[in-house]
């Protein structure tokens, strides 16, 4: 990996760290209402202005960022683990379980996840705290997202299983589990890293989408999706242009992620 790629990855990691700790930087309590200053424009006191209830939008942006980034990371970890476990197992063992896995993967990939989540929200107990609701949703998303990384891992495991050093290990009588851990698992890490960079922004966007539809983090907790809702009434932006500020401020995360993915892809091509 060259210096430019490392720099891109570092920027991405830095942005994630800053945003994950966003709630710590928030200048005001993000849920405290001051109804006498609702919908104020940006000022020295309130950099992004205030919302309909007089809450500081910049504080809500930062606090919402923590939740979006951390939930994105958590869902990515769960999704990748499930995908790696399933793909690794069927790739290494093969047989009937492999065919079943492929069909199950097709089924999962064809699920309209948004509708699944909407349906699930309708049957959840209402007493759940807003974050518990969102955590449930994101776990569900992670469960329905296992198929793509699992297929990639399966392909990689099949490929690695036929390598000479694996055949040699088998000839020397090394136990299967040890072959998997020592010779095959390390070979799948590159795929997992690349998938992590692909899945992470998807999960962050999933949280934003759910909140946009009113199904994610509910009030009074801050959420990035709530800022997008303002864009539904685009005509408002002519007068209240500052409603765009939090939305524009999300861009660095997604752009840096895109650059990081490009850097990893280039590094992979160069290594071949």
């Amino acid at each position, binding site marked *: 990996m060259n210096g430019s790629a490392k720099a891109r990855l570092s920027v991405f990691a830095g942005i994630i760290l800053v945003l994950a700790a966003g709630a710590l930087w928030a200048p005001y309590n993000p849920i405290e209402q001051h*109804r006498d200053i609702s919908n104020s424009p940006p000022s020295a006191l309130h950099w992004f202005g205030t919302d309909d*209830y007089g809450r500081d939008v910049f504080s809500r942006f930062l606090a919402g960022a923590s939740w979006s980034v951390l939930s994105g990371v958590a869902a990515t970890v769960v999704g990748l683990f499930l995908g790696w476990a399933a793909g690794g197992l069927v790739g290494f063992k093969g047989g009937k379980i492999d065919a079943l896995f492929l069909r199950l993967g097709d089924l999962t990939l064809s699920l309209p996840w948004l509708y699944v989540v*909407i349906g699930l929200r*309708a049957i959840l107990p*209402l007493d*759940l705290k807003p974050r518990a609701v969102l955590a449930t949703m994101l776990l569900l998303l992670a469960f329905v997202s296992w198929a793509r990384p699992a297929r990639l891992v399966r392909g990689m495991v099949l490929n690695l299983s036929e390598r000479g050093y694996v055949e040699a290990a088998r000839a020397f009588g090394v136990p299967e589990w040890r072959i998997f851990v020592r010779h095959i698992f390390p070979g799948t890490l590159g795929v997992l890293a690349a998938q992590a960079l692909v899945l992470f922004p998807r999960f962050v966007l999933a949280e934003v989408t759910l909140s946009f539809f009113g199904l994610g983090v509910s*009030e009074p907790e801050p959420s990035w999706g709530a800022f997008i*809702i303002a864009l539904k009434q685009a005509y408002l932006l002519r007068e209240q242009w500052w409603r765009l500020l939090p939305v524009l401020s999300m861009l660095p995360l997604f752009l840096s992620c895109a650059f990081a993915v490009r850097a990893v892809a280039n590094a992979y091509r160069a290594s071949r």
Partner: protein
Amino acid sequence: MCRVATWACSVLLLCPGGLTTAASLDTPRWGGVLHVAQRAEPKTFNPVIAVDAPSREVLRRLHADLITINRFTQKTEPGLAESWTRSGDGTRYTLKLRKGVRFSDGVPFTADDVVFSWSVYLDELVHSPQRDLLLIEDKPIRVSKLDSYTVEFTLPQPYAAAERVFDSVAMLPRHVLEPAWKAGKISSAWTVNTPASEIVGLGPFRLKQYRPGEAVVLERNPEYWQTAPGTSRNLPYLDGIEFRLLPDEGVQLARFVSGDIDVLNRLSMNAVSFLQRQGASVTDLGPGLEYNFLCFNLSPASPKIKWFSKREFRTALSLAADRESMARTVFLGRATPIWGHVSPGNRLWYSDRIAHPKRSVADAKQMLKAAGFLWNGKGQLIDGAQTPVEFSILVSTSSPERMQMATMLQADYAQLGIGVNIAPLEFRSLLDRVTNTRQFDTVLLGLGGGDADPNPELNVWLSSGGTHLWNPNQKQPATAWEAEIDQLMEKQMVTLNPSERRKQYERVQEIVAEQVPMIFLVTPNVVVAQRGNVGNFRPAVMDHFTLWNSSELYLRKGGSGQ
């Protein structure tokens, strides 16, 4: 009994007088097509089964009723019946039909069509939403033909609002629909795929074309029976109306500003501010009939019933709700705080005897203390068993205003130490929980009668009603105050003396306000807009706010249809 539970948003109120004085001085101009924005597609062109607002808005222009409610004066006036008389005991109405009236296909309208229409609406197999309107105490209003132009309606008992029942019951062409009804297929007649020429009515317009996803186009009905004042020429003034299907309010506004749309119906408050800045002609009709409220689940199986059943608890929550802020913040000042279910916009039935207690968190806390609640070290409100008081507010994801109100209540109740979870749900899921499964703590909803009269909301206030939201379908009234409401509502239904009836319904309002099964919050204003090119424009708060007098509307020079 009349059963109508109208969910949200259909509202009725007089608009302030003199709004269109200048318009009424113009000489009406013939011709042109009026362009109106509509949010959703019509589901059917069959008035017998239409329940959705978009279908009904189109159908109201295609059909006519015997007696109609003038949306501006709120009083009944002749429609297809030119006059009527009531028997001394109030159980028989004799209606004289207009002679010479023809359907849009040229066939004369007679008493046979009235008898046929009534039979269709009352047919249990048809499942018409109008059927419940035509029942009093579960017994139907019967009709008989006295001669070709005279019909007699017999009521099972006196009914205070009998004349209003005829409004919005479209008269059907027997010669077209009888075969379908006899074959048991009337529900599948006149779908959105039916050729426009087969749809026949008595309204000022007839269907010309339906372009799915784009527009519903109506053209002048050449057989329409009403004549223009001072002429012998038949109304309507307009050549047609085009309902342009624009689901997004932002797009509607852009098209309105660019001149593609002449009339906008029921605007959001943000849209009002935007249009005012653009210099558009916006009419604020003042408070409508819609009332927004937080309803407690008082069903015996409600998990929070031990708190909610205490009147002091409910009253304390009402005291802590900041209605003024809601009106100011959520509706940008275009709403009125309310403490009862009849909005100040309902001039016929609003009672100024309902108390308007000032918001006071201190008084609310005092009341909770008196009811046996305490606060723990963390400032949480706890009951006698040391359980922290927490509940959820169910709210529809499709209503940003109610989401905002719920958020404000959440902050208001946090000041009492009460934890509130907001549970946003898709509207159908929400309705299922409220009316069927009863799996909710509280719900934030809006209701509003299509009519100012109390009777369409009988089902909400009677304890046996399916939309008696806090505890529906009771076999016997669960409380003494609900029993009293039942008695009063049943009495007012048959009381023909208006002042007696008013007293009875005022008492109902007082009981509801005292017992607080619902916390009434705000009534939003009804605001509409037109480009300034529509003559005889007399918007009213009753649905359809702007097109109720479509036969009289005309376009001044320079309209989009020119």
